[in-house]
């Protein structure tokens, strides 16, 4: 966490998730020991819980529900994990939140798309790649093909949502 805290949140909002991935890598073992002692979870259950908690945290940042990075991030994440367990939220399901229903429906439909479509939409809307770069990544012959492909995938997702 060498970057300033405010910058960390900004980076998360624009799609740089390295901060959370690093946190998971650093904390997975200690978190599993804590979960085993406090809640009698086995290692695999603890790892899933930490992943879900970090996804909830990401949602809070992306939604704008969290605007200031907590002073003690470890305590905050452990607290969120405890809330998940207390609320008995099933694994791989996010915490209830504003707009969650609409977004969760879209996420579910997004996962119904083929891998190529998911990749194209992720490159364009999440990574912010232009058509030329996206075409290069996907192996399309030119930017026009990439644009048409993106249009097709976006319409397909919209049709699934209706």
């Amino acid at each position, binding site marked *: 966490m060498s970057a300033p805290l405010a910058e960390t949140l900004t980076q998360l909002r624009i*799609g740089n998730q390295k901060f959370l991935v690093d946190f998971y890598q650093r904390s997975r073992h200690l978190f599993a020991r804590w979960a085993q002692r406090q809640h009698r979870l086995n290692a695999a259950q603890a790892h899933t819980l930490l992943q879900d908690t970090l*996804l909830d945290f990401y949602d809070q940042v*992306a939604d704008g529900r969290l605007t200031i990075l907590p002073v003690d991030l470890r305590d905050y994440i452990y607290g969120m994990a405890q809330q998940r367990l207390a609320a008995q939220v099933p694994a791989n399901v996010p915490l209830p939140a504003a707009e969650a229903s609409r977004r969760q429906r879209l996420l579910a439909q997004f996962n119904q798309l083929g891998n190529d479509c998911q990749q194209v939409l*992720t490159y364009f809307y999440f990574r912010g790649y232009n058509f030329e770069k996206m075409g290069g990544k996907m192996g399309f012959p030119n930017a026009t093909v990439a644009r048409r492909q993106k249009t097709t995938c976006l319409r397909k997702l919209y049709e699934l949502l209706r």
Partner: protein
Amino acid sequence: MDLRPYFDELERFADGQMAPAEQDAFELRLEQDEALADAHAAFEQFTADLRWAAGHDTLRLRLQALDDRMNERGSALARAEQLSQRRQRLSTLLGALGVVLLLAAGAVAWYLLRPSAARPAHNWEAYYQPDPGPAVTTGLLHSRPLLSEALDQYQSGHYPAALHSLGRVSPTNVGADTLTYLRGLMLLRQGQGNAAQLYLRRVADDGDAGELARRARYHLGMAYWQAKELAPALATLRDVATDSLNPYRASARRAVAAGVLD
């Protein structure tokens, strides 16, 4: 709201694919056409949700991939640890086996080399009962000093010196048979079985029924044995073993009974 009638325009506008004049016209229509403005707002929310969903899914997949990698690494480390422990156990087992084999080899070697009643000795010395000769008394020392010196050296184990001293003793003072017998004894003890036979045979054949001849016969048998002449050794010792008057009868019987001369 159904976006399909507006989808193409809204997408091209959002992606910056319109020409400047077309874009200006579209922006003007957005201000005037309420339905288009609502569709634009709905499209923006749709793409914002999509941006979130793509980010959420990307993070989920990255965390899962990292988790899989860490699990694989943990399993590989555990396997390596297990392998190392197994190797350590194997080397300990082999070491213990080596020690056991070494001890077994030592025990077998000890068993084979140990003196045993069950395995009779083949060496003549194991059955030999030495004759120390007459005791060196003060009287003997005064009356026959050279003989006393020779006997003293013989009893001390200095056989060459004893033979030399014996050579200086006159047969008239001691008796020829005694001197011959003693010379045979000394040669036998010195390890010259062949030479000893000449002297001991002379005494043994000479006085057939005498005490000295009986003694000489026993030592002659041992001299044959020492010279590896087993057949005459066995025959001579058998004679001794059957002679109830021979003082070495018991020793001769033991040697014959052992069967090592057969």
